[in-house]
Structures are given as structure tokens and as C-alpha cells.
């Protein structure tokens, strides 16, 4: 495929080819970063970190068809690192949060993205990877470097929470 040629070029250090690859992924990457930090500046930080790391390690990418998954993994790790470094308080679904959720306006409650943002980071990752990036359980397990069983459990629980949060009908 055409992308494969570009990837191989990028692997050999071709800056332009690498840039082309990033162009294809940039929007999705940025949006995913945003889903973790809810702030444009922070998202750009994570994005920059991701692109830099990808540039430095692309020569190690073995299977070219997995470029997208590969760079997604880098992004998720960068996002998690960023959160750790900045000690952002990730809203956990605990008694307090449930109360606060109940106090939210209905419109906000209905907002899917907001609901996802309210998920704990691990659950958020599986939801984003499963439904935004359409990865299989196996691929998600690779990206998150987690066992498949854990991924399944997280996904299950994440969906449950979202359902409860959104009070939606059949999901």
C-alpha cells in the first residue's frame, strides 16, 4: 500500500515522509490527547511529546501496517505520563462524584464526551480505543500492555458506568 512505502521511507530517516504519516493521524491523536486532559494546551504538549518520540523510534517499527496502532500507544503513554507528572486529579466515580454528577445539568449529563471524560483513566482508554479507534480487544491489550482479560473487564465496567451516567436506554 502507498502508506507502506511512506512508512519505510520514514523509517530510513526521511523527515518529509514522517511528516506525511503524522498528517494522516494528527487530528485523531490530538483529540485522544484532549480526551485525557480536557485542555487544548496540555493536549498539544502530549501531542508534541508523542510526535517527537515517534520520530526518534520509528526505525524500530517492525510491522508497517500497525503504524496507527503503534503511534496510538505512544500517545496513550505520553498522556498517562503527563497526567502523572502533573498530578491531575482524575475524577473517579465515588460517592462524591456521583453526587456531583447528579447536580449537573441535564444537557451536560447527556454529553457522551463529558461522560467518557468522567471515567477513570484506564476505563477511558479502553472506551476510546475500542470505539474511537475501533481496535480489537487484542490490539487494545497490546497498546495498553495489559492482559486481554483485564481489557475485557475494564471495557465491561466502563460501559456500565457510562450507561449509568448517561441513563441511556439500550446500549
Amino acid at each position, binding site marked *: 500500500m502507498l502508506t507502506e512505502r511512506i512508512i519505510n521511507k520514514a523509517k530510513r530517516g526521511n523527515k518529509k515522509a514522517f511528516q506525511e504519516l503524522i498528517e494522516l493521524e494528527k487530528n485523531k491523536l490530538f483529540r485522544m490527547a484532549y480526551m485525557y486532559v480536557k485542555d487544548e494546551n496540555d493536549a498539544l504538549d502530549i501531542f508534541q511529546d508523542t*510526535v517527537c518520540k515517534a520520530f526518534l523510534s520509528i526505525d524500530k517499527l517492525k510491522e508497517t501496517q500497525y503504524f496507527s496502532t503503534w503511534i496510538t500507544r505512544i500517545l496513550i503513554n505520553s498522556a498517562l505520563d503527563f497526567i502523572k507528572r502533573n498530578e491531575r486529579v482524575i475524577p473517579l466515580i465515588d460517592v462524591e462524584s456521583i453526587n456531583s454528577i447528579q447536580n449537573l445539568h441535564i444537557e451536560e449529563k447527556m454529553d457522551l464526551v463529558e461522560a467518557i471524560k468522567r471515567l477513570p483513566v484506564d476505563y477511558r482508554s479502553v472506551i476510546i480505543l475500542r470505539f474511537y479507534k475501533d481496535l480489537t480487544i487484542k490490539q487494545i491489550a497490546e497498546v495498553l500492555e495489559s492482559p486481554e482479560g483485564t481489557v475485557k473487564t475494564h471495557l465491561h465496567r466502563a460501559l456500565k458506568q457510562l450507561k449509568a451516567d448517561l441513563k441511556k436506554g439500550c446500549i
Partner: protein
Amino acid sequence: MNDNFSNEIKAEIDKINIPEERLEKTIQVAIHKGIKKQRKPIYKKTLYLCSAAVLLFSLFIGSTFVSPVMADVMSKLPFIGSYFGSNNDVMKMITEELHEKGYKVNASTSYPEKEILIEVSGSETHYREVKSDIETISNNILKARNYDAYMVKVVRGKTKNIKKNDDVQKKSGEYQLLDKEIRKELEKSGINILHTSIHYNPQKLVLDIPNTESRVKQIKEKVNNIISSNNIESMQVEVRKVDLKKSEQESRWGFILQDVKNDLLGKKEYKISQVGFTIEPQPTIQVFLSLPSSDEDVKEFAENIEIVINEYLNSDNMESVLMNDSYSIIIHSKDNIKLN
């Protein structure tokens, strides 16, 4: 069911606004950062080859060594002579600094190991106390000049028991007297003596005179007279003629080389194990690389080094020191094959 959810999620997440311009800029910054990080050690070889290629190309354009194009390219190459004509031999600096701090040390260097040996005189306890400070001071001086090729080793100096040899003392006194008288006497006839020295086995007195001086017989006569009149054991008198111009040239080039040597030997990136020079028949700088002739990049590397040395020697500061002497540079590989 899941598909619907998936579509919904996609639709929702894709609503997140993309700051186009900032995103583009971020990509550029990120790649730039990556390139900078890459440039360290791993890509030095590529950098050398690229620099060499660019340089050779510039040379083909027929520019002189001091053209602005060259200068610009040169600035990307490691350059030598950061201490233009300051005659700041790094060993001298280290010794001076340590003496200033009150340490009684003696520093010497060994080649091609490039080990700086610092001998500390005093007791074992004293040595242990001062060892790390001496190491730090020395390494800091090296670091300030980016000399990464040298290893500093601080050891306890063996106390040399210089027994006062009375016989030697006596002879030395005699000799000094002799020197003084000879000069005084010969001055009367307008004869200039450059240097006197005593050689042993067989014992002889050697006088160095300028090669413009022709009164050798006269000199010998007078010197012999002085020796006998002082009741000194008679010895051979030898008169050597010295080419003043060459002698002056030799000391000038020695001075030039001091600076060159310091940088070339001090930095690992030059891969030079030894530097020497001769002035016969013409000033020649000899550089010995630590690379074997079998290395595929060695020729380019040698050419590179030659250019760097030439650039230094042709710089403005060096003009007065070089005094238009024509010179040549020879670069050898580890296995003594001439590379340039």
C-alpha cells in the same frame, strides 16, 4: 448496538475542535526536537561524512581556505585553536592551578595512552586526602576545553632521595665559572656564543655559535687557555655551528605546534594519537591517527583534519607567527600509511 455506540462516540469526539495552526507548528517543533536529540553520538559519523562531503565540494569550487563559504562550513566542524596563541599548554595550566592550590605535584603525560599522571608528594594520608580534589581540579580544566581524550590518574609520588653528590656539585660550579669566563673573553673579540654545554663520555665542552661566525680556531684556542688557567682537567673542545634562522624557525614552529597539539590530542573526536613536527627540510606537521588505513572513512577523515589544521594555521592570528613559512601537513594512519 456496539456499532451505534461506536459511531456516536466517534461523532462526539470528532466534535473536539482542532487548533489547526498550532497543531502544525507543534509537529514542526516536535520533529525539530527529535532531530536535535538524534544528532548526539550515534550520528556523529554521518555528520563527519556530510561535513567532509560539503567541504570537498566547496574546495572544488576553487575557493581558498579562508573563503566565507569555507568559514561557514568550518564552523560546523570541530575546530581547533580556541586558545589562539595563548600558549596555554593544558599540562602547564593543570600544574599551575594545582601549585596555586598548594599541592606539591608533578604532572606528566604518556602517549598514545593519553594518560595524565599526577604525582603527589607527601605522606599516604596526605595523598588520600587530596586525591579527589586534585582529580576534580584537573578534570574541570580538561572539561572546560572539551578535552575528553585524556584520563587523569593521581598517584603518590615516590620520594626521590636526591643525595647531594659532592662531586657533581663541584663539577657544576666549575662549569658555571667556565661558561662565564669564556663568554666574557670572547665578547672582547666580538664573538657571540649562543650556548655552552658539557657532554660526558667522552667529556667535552661544546660551544654553539652562529653559522655566520668563522673564527673557530681562535675560539678553540681561547677556550683551551681558559680551561688550563683555571686548573680544570683538560677536555675536548667542540665548536658547533648553528643555523640561526632554522633555530628561530624551530622554536616558532614549536610554539605553533603546542597549541595545535593540545586541541588535536585532547579531543576524542579527532582520533589523533600523536602529533610531531620537523623543520628539515621544510616545516612539516606530522599527525598520527588512531584509525587504521583499512577504515573506509579514514581518507576523508584525514582530509578533514588537514583542512582543519590549515584553517587554523591560515587564520589571522597565526599570520605573524607563521611568517610566510611554507609548510606541509602529513597525516598517517595507525599502521603508518600516509593518508593525504
